[in-house]
């Protein structure tokens, strides 16, 4: 049995929140540069130039890439042989989010209650925390700050088995076409297929953590990722004001489902597809 103190977790999360806000992952940066080379629209090229320059300024000056520094989504893998000492794991994570967002001059964008009062909690907590128990004695923490310009365009469709691959393609494209210029394209599209309604949405969020250069291990899903990316780049949406670079990647995650169902969830992320990872 290995022991770690909650303070270590809090400190790691605080640092990760800042890193994720300031430093665009290298694979996303490279995908933007590649998009700039092939973009056909002159306005689209101007937009991509601004986006690339923005990532460079943010990195050089430790400034948030986007003013929407997001609601913090945390994916935990907790080794079952790990003992966490000194307090509650969730409290430690939330303390880290509060610390990181305050120290890092990040925008606090969370309201405590969604409908009537909508009062800002002033420290960006609570985070959305997904916890999974795994073998071993390590704690893996992945952070995905999610902006809501793109989150508001995310959606889910409960298909039936007869809808098949074509149904999945249509569902994804309907969501993308409805989102159009709004989610700050070029987008990164996370697709979750299978599970239940909520699990499909979870898969679609997890899919955004995978590097854009890595395709699904299952060849048929990898092909579907390529087909969907190709279709999205033919919509004309482009980098916000029209063009050929509408999305940088489509990442699919899938899981077992019920004999009667075929849930498809799409989490749309903007070009600032931010995340950071640490293993304690």
């Amino acid at each position, binding site marked *: 049995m290995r022991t770690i103190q909650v303070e270590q977790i809090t400190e790691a999360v605080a640092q990760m929140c800042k890193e994720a806000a300031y430093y665009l992952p290298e694979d996303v940066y490279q995908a933007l540069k590649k998009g700039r080379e092939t973009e056909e629209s002159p306005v689209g090229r101007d937009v991509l130039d601004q986006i690339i320059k923005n990532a460079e300024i943010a990195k050089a000056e430790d400034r948030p890439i986007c*003013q929407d520094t997001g609601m913090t989504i945390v994916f935990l893998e907790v080794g079952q042989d790990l003992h966490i000492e000194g307090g509650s794991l969730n409290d430690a994570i939330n303390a880290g989010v509060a610390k990181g967002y305050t120290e890092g*001059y990040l925008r606090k964008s969370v309201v405590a209650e969604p409908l009537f009062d909508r009062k800002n909690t002033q420290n960006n907590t609570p985070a959305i925390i997904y916890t999974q128990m795994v073998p071993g004695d390590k704690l893996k923490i992945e952070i995905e700050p999610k902006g809501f310009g793109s989150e508001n365009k995310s959606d889910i469709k409960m298909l039936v088995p007869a809808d098949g691959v074509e149904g999945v393609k249509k569902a994804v494209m309907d969501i993308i076409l409805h989102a*159009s210029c709004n989610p700050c394209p070029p987008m990164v599209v996370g697709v979750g297929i299978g599970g239940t309604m909520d699990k499909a949405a979870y898969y679609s969020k997890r899919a955004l953590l995978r590097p854009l250069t890595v395709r699904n291990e299952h060849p048929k899903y990898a092909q579907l990722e390529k087909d969907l990316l190709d279709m999205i780049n033919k919509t*004309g949406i482009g980098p916000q004001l*029209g063009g050929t670079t509408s999305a940088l990647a489509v990442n699919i995650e899938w899981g077992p489902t019920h004999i009667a169902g075929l849930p498809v969830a799409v989490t749309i992320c*903007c070009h600032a597809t931010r995340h950071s990872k640490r293993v304690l």
Partner: protein
Amino acid sequence: MAEKIRITTPLTEEASRKLKAGDSVLISGVIYSARDAAHKVMTEALARGEKLPIDWHNQIVYYLGPTPAKPGNPIGSCGPTTAGRMDAYTPTMLEQGIKGMIGKGSREPEVIESMKKNGATYFAAVGGAAAFISKSVKKYEVIAYPELGPEALAALTVEDFPAIVVIDSEGNNFYEIGQKPYRRL
């Protein structure tokens, strides 16, 4: 890219009506930031017959909720937020004399009709280019509703703030015009 058009605030109806969808502009002068909560508070105040904290005549509103400024900087990162969320309030606000709006994303037909009537222009700034855009902001001053935090009503002094006319005062929409040549589905 065609040459960028320099505009200074206040933006008169005449100047606004000259701008065409697809024009690239650089804005200088004072613009005012307001987003969801500020719009809600202002339209509620108008409904009660109260005066607003500023005179919106010939002004530009920027849909923005910036990150806090680091010491030594006038403002944090400050890219545009989704304009469509303001659509429910926009016709009322345009009646107050606003001639320019800066945001990102599409607008409802009612908003476009009100823009035509009032001679207003909708500009897009690049969504997410918030660190880059912050370079053009020289001063940030909260004018009203400080309790709204990042949603407070504030005055920004800007120099060469980069934007593109997406919907002009005749209702031409560059989101549609710009996408068409590249749609191959």
